């Protein structure tokens, strides 16, 4: 039987509950009241727990997680500081948090006061028939509200239904998302989404649509600045870079929309901003994959890795300071304000020859062109193709994905999502292929570093050699997968879908080779 997870706009007392008890059968209700304590409601920056219908409280040094889907409460000791979830000590709360994010840290949403009561309904012989817990929560001067869950105990469905009924009579309402609690406590949800749903209209001149896309991603990217500066978790810089990369991609992919010179100038400016963060992101990636590198090398090479990672961690501190001060510099802030102004209205940038083309026509043409490039590069792929060509293919795919995602609101959602999914499959293989490359480069770097000198040099060199060979082998396997998945992506079915969605009536298939 489903647990009854409820929200109560007022407080719950034993007296109130008893008023609703029937005379027959004879029930006894026990409510063990907890202590009213100061607490914090926590969530990740991107509201991951809210979205997953989970509420996390820190009461004193204890974490308390409530899963609104199942009504289950989980508890474990709170960590010192605010580490990324993946770095927290394992436990029942962390297990639930890991389903939401590994890389995010927990941030306080709001300070509250709360009390936890444990209740039981017993029969005339003192046997427990139903259990429930009730949380009384208050914030500032607002009146206290409550929430809780009644758990069915096997074989006692009647008492369970009765308790459900009494709670409803007291004003309890079924609750399965965190929205009720947030609105009850008057908490405004932070507006942050790295994949926003844009509103684009097919007939709008493409310059307007593209400017809207640029403005949106710049704004989302900038929402991460404070998190990067405070070094809260690595996802801030990751999201920041994703957004800025998208802004740059839009500028370089949508040729002809803006004046070529203006566009090139903006691109260069954005590239310079991105460059400042390259070093920090590279170190983040290495450090995040630390466990994986340890797993890949034999234990004899672990000492070497330790030295290497210690030096990475040290370097990271310097890089973080550099990025942080760059983001707080007057020059940076001025240039951001300037970009925001430019992307606020489409008139602020000079138009290119395509500026007035309708968004739909432009998007169709561009997406098809990119699809053709992917297929063309892919058709020549075999076991002897140089890695460089595969990397090129990866970049084509990435560009195609960006274009399809940017302009997705112009097309029927189900169909474009289907195509994006099939592209994603291919991208996963290409991503793995790239990872193996990066890992090999990493090992090369390791070999060239100090750890490869001295007495352990031979041992380390030996294990790195073996590992590189293994990675090379895995990369070869991935290459085969890429060829297989490409065949699927270049199949008649997918080609037809692309044709249907993106081929314009005006015969945009100029060279007639697009979809053959």
């Amino acid at each position, binding site marked *: 039987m489903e647990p009854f997870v409820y929200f109560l706009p007022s407080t719950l007392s034993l007296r109130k509950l008893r008023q609703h008890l029937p005379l027959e059968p004879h029930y006894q209700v026990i409510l063990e009241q907890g202590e009213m304590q100061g607490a914090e409601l926590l969530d990740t920056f991107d509201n991951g727990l809210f979205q997953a219908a989970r509420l996390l409280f820190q009461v004193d040094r204890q974490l308390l997680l409530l899963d609104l889907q199942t009504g289950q409460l989980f508890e474990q000791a709170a960590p010192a500081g605010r580490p990324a979830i993946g770095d927290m000590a394992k436990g029942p709360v962390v297990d639930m948090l890991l389903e939401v994010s590994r890389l995010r840290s927990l941030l306080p949403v709001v300070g509250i006061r709360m009390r936890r009561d444990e209740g039981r309904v017993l029969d005339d012989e003192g*046997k427990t028939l139903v259990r429930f817990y009730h949380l009384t929560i208050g914030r500032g001067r607002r009146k206290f509200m409550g929430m809780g869950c009644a758990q069915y*105990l*096997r074989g006692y469905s009647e008492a369970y239904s009765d308790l459900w009924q009494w709670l409803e009579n007291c004003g309890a309402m079924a609750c399965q998302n965190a929205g009720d609690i947030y609105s009850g406590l008057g908490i405004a949800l932070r507006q942050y989404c790295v994949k926003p749903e844009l509103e684009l209209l097919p007939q709008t001149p493409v310059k307007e649509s593209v400017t809207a896309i640029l403005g949106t991603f710049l704004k989302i990217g900038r929402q991460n600045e404070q998190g990067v500066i405070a070094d809260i978790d690595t996802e801030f810089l990751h999201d920041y870079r994703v957004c800025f990369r998208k802004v740059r991609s839009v500028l370089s992919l949508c040729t002809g929309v803006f004046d070529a010179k203006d566009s090139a100038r903006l691109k260069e400016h954005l590239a310079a901003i991105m460059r400042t963060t390259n070093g920090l992101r590279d170190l983040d990636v290495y450090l995040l994959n630390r466990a994986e590198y340890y797993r890949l090398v034999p234990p004899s090479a672990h000492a070497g890795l330790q030295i290497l990672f210690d030096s990475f961690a040290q370097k990271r501190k310097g890089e973080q300071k550099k990025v942080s001060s760059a983001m707080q510099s007057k020059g940076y802030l001025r240039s951001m304000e300037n970009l925001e102004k430019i992307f606020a209205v489409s008139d602020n940038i000079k138009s290119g020859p395509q500026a007035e083309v309708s968004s739909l026509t432009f998007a169709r043409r561009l997406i098809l062109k990119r699809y053709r490039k992917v297929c063309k590069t892919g058709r020549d792929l075999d076991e002897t193709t140089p890695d460089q060509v595969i990397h090129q293919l990866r970049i084509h795919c990435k560009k195609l994905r960006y274009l399809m995602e940017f302009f997705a609101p112009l097309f029927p959602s189900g169909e474009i999502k289907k195509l994006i999914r099939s592209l994603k499959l291919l991208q996963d293989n290409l991503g793995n292929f790239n990872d193996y490359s990066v890992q090999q480069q990493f090992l090369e770097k390791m070999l060239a570093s100090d750890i490869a000198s001295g007495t352990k040099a031979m041992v380390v060199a030996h294990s790195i050699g073996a590992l590189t060979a293994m990675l090379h082998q895995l990369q070869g396997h991935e290459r085969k997968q890429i060829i297989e998945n490409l065949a699927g992506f270049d199949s008649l079915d997918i080609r037809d879908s692309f044709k249907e969605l993106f081929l314009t009536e005006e015969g945009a298939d100029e060279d007639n080779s697009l979809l053959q």
Partner: protein
Amino acid sequence: MKIIACYSNKGGVGKTATSVNLAYISAMSGYRTLLCDLDPQGASGFYFRVKPSKKLPHNTFFDDVGKLVSAIRASDYEKLDLLPANLTYRDFDIFLSRMKNKRSRLKKALKAVDSDYQVIILDCPPNISLLSENVFKAADKIVVPVIPSTLSVRTLAQLHTFFKDNNYQVKKILPFFSMVQQSKKLHRETMVALQKEYKSLLEDYIPFSTDVEKMGVHRAPVLTYAGKDQASIAYRTIWSDIEKKAKIKK
């Protein structure tokens, strides 16, 4: 799912106390546990304050899986459920004797809850009957409390003979000493003698304990109110021994 029967063909040896405490320890060790009370007196249910099941006559026990499952009740302890007995169980034997495959009906009935539980503990009535034979077939291990006295020793010997004569697996039998009074010479001597005779005897024994006697007053396993009592400690050791021997795994 492992089935552990708590059985003796002699009454008053501490079967129900053993069943109740072992079931409690099993659940506290993290196993989803069902204590199945097959004794019509329903003492196991009494200790857990679970009222007898009115709606489960013997014919439905073996025939109607749905009814069997719906008669299960949660105990007050996490992961521990109970299938309470009722007085109609007195007629189990008559009923079983009329059935096909009359010695494997219990095993078949318990299959219905196979996915719900990792451990099933059977609290059995004290006799050798068709129901007991069903128990011998269904159980992975049969723990037998033995008071180190002449009569109990005789019944243990009878049980072994019965197993051999009827081709049941003797190695399923795990006897252990129960209600031991070290001050009694007879108890001490019997223990030494039997340890030589039965290699499968569990190492630890349950001492006679007034705290165990008080289970009827507390209506709870002894471990919940007298966890440091020697008997409580011994029940824990005995459980971990059974856990190993029956290869119970999470």
